[in-house]
């Protein structure tokens, strides 16, 4: 009888008790792995995305993510694991994009043009790979729009190792990178290796995008790469605070997304993206509201203090 009740609990719906709901979900190893993978990815993406938004390289980031699709399709075609394809293609595309010098007035335009070119070509390759694959290439939709079912413990370990490597490398590059991101000309004049930093950053971004692709799909990567960082940078200009906020938002939308997807049976990618979008809209509205009443707000605040 107790076993029957336990099972009824395990398959029951949403209870509004977060502890019960989490316990219910974590009774299943596939959900434990989904939460572990989602958390690792969210942290790495939020940190890398924060620098990406600061450096105005969102388009490059999008391209790096999108080339994960031909990567995954090509890897399956060649008989390797999809994860391996994500990483190889994303990092290789990063090196190609980094080959364009980022100096001079029209550097941004040149990089954008090359990025667009690389993106279109590699997407076309992805389409060819799916056509070449003799047999049934399952899961194209989940490659594009994400999936959280079927993540193995081995995959979680790979995600963790890559995320740790990316964050350690970023820690080493962080200080000069921030300088070079905020004012590349002055940094170059001071002897900071701007070009090298830019290449290194793109490679790390490629690795982070490859990670995020495996959770949100290659088309919805921005849900974790751009949206949390953009939201955080809307709310505060202070680096420490906005970086921490970015990580917090990314983890929160991932957990909320996983929970909703688990209880609703609808795709994860939609929920993560929607929550991230809602956070961004709220942040903009809060910013707008704060901007509208700066003078009046100061007086009662002084009174309250």
């Amino acid at each position, binding site marked *: 009888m107790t076993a*029957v009740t336990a099972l009824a609990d395990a398959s029951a719906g949403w209870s509004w008790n977060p502890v019960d709901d989490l316990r219910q979900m974590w009774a299943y*190893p596939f959900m434990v792995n989904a939460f572990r993978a989602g958390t690792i990815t969210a942290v790495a993406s939020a940190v890398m995305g924060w620098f990406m938004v600061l450096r105005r390289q969102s388009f490059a980031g999008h391209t790096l993510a999108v080339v994960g699709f031909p990567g995954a399709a090509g890897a399956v075609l060649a008989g390797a694991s999809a994860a391996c394809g994500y990483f190889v293609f994303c990092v290789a595309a990063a090196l190609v994009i980094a080959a364009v010098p980022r100096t001079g007035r029209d550097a941004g335009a040149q990089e954008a043009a090359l990025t667009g070119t690389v993106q279109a070509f590699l997407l076309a390759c992805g389409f060819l790979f799916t056509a070449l694959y003799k*047999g049934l290439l399952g899961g194209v939709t989940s490659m594009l729009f994400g999936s959280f079912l*079927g993540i193995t413990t081995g995959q979680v370990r790979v995600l963790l190792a890559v995320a*740790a490597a990316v964050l350690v490398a970023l820690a080493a590059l962080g200080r000069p990178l921030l300088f070079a991101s905020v004012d590349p000309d002055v940094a170059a004049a001071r002897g900071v290796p701007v070009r090298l930093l830019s290449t290194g950053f793109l490679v790390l971004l490629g690795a982070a995008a490859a990670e995020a692709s495996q959770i949100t799909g290659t088309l919805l990567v921005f849900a974790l790469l751009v949206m949390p960082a953009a939201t955080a940078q809307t709310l505060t200009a202070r680096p420490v605070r906005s970086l921490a906020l970015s990580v917090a938002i990314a983890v929160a939308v991932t957990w909320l997304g996983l929970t909703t997807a688990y209880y609703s049976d609808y795709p994860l990618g939609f929920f993560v993206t929607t929550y991230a979008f809602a956070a961004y809209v709220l942040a903009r509205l809060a910013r707008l509201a704060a901007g509208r009443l700066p003078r009046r707000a100061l007086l009662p*605040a002084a009174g309250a203090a």
Partner: protein
Amino acid sequence: MKAAAHRRQPRPARRAPFARVTPTRLALGGVAVLAALAATACSTASTGSTGSTGSTGSSSATGGGTPGSAGDGKGGGRTIQVVAAENFWGSLAAQLGGGHVHVTSVIDNPDADPHDYEPTAKDARTVASARLTIVNGIGYDSWAGKLLAATPSPDRTDLDVGDLVGVRPGGNPHRWYSPADVHTVVERITADYKTIDPADAADFDRLKNTFETRTLAPYTQAVAGIRAAYAGTPIGASESIVSPLAEGLGLKMLTPASFLGAISEGTDPTAHDKALIDRQIKDRQIKVYVYNSQNATPDVQQQVKEARAAGIPVATVTETLTPAGASFQDWQVRQLDGIRQALATALGK
């Protein structure tokens, strides 16, 4: 309003300005956060998986879980939870297990395509509570393989039809259209039931004998009848799902394998193949045209039209059980009757 007021409050001690914050410390902080989170996740994971062993164990012992498509649990007894990726295998499993099993088929809707099915969280939960799983394999239902890999369980028996009948990925996955393979799978399901629930072994043997000799008899007879009367007749088909059946019936498949594969796998057929098939139809080299009505691409529809115009009888098959609640044998026998009628019309015997 009040919240906004609080946020605008001037702070007595300002933080260091933008440029002076050391990003190294920031990033190191990030690593620390990640490490902490990972550690938390790992620790919850270990408690989570301990919990899950209990819950999956209890679910296989009791009759709960998701409502099944076939089979009725014998209240209170040891009911084996069976999850089949597709309903054609599920139908066999339900009839072979009788009241001792509770079968849930993930794909039980004629409109769902098993090739590119995206499993839901509910499917993953169903798989996680299974004692026996049956997947087709051979790359046909790779989503099911992923669900199994994400929920490893030492108590679960996984039956992969492709592995059982020795067809490797890249081979023809439509094993339920091969009469010989159907019998192999029937034997294996019963063997697995007997291993899982040895107490009811005699029951399972009895169920299997009834199934093979009585329930499946019309199917076996229909196959043997067509084979005896029409073996060697050249036919055309829309996709590779027909190939194992043609082999089992002794019919000669004239349609190029590359075309059959392309339609089955959802890729574009070549112009050369299409021209060849057009000629086969116009010259009436094929006596009957068989197509999968659940996967009638424009190319296939065109060929159906051409075949009818050329006076070639057309028969249909479907990917999964049609209608959804049909049993495996009723479905197959109805299709075999259609093929026999088409052959009879074409050959006038």
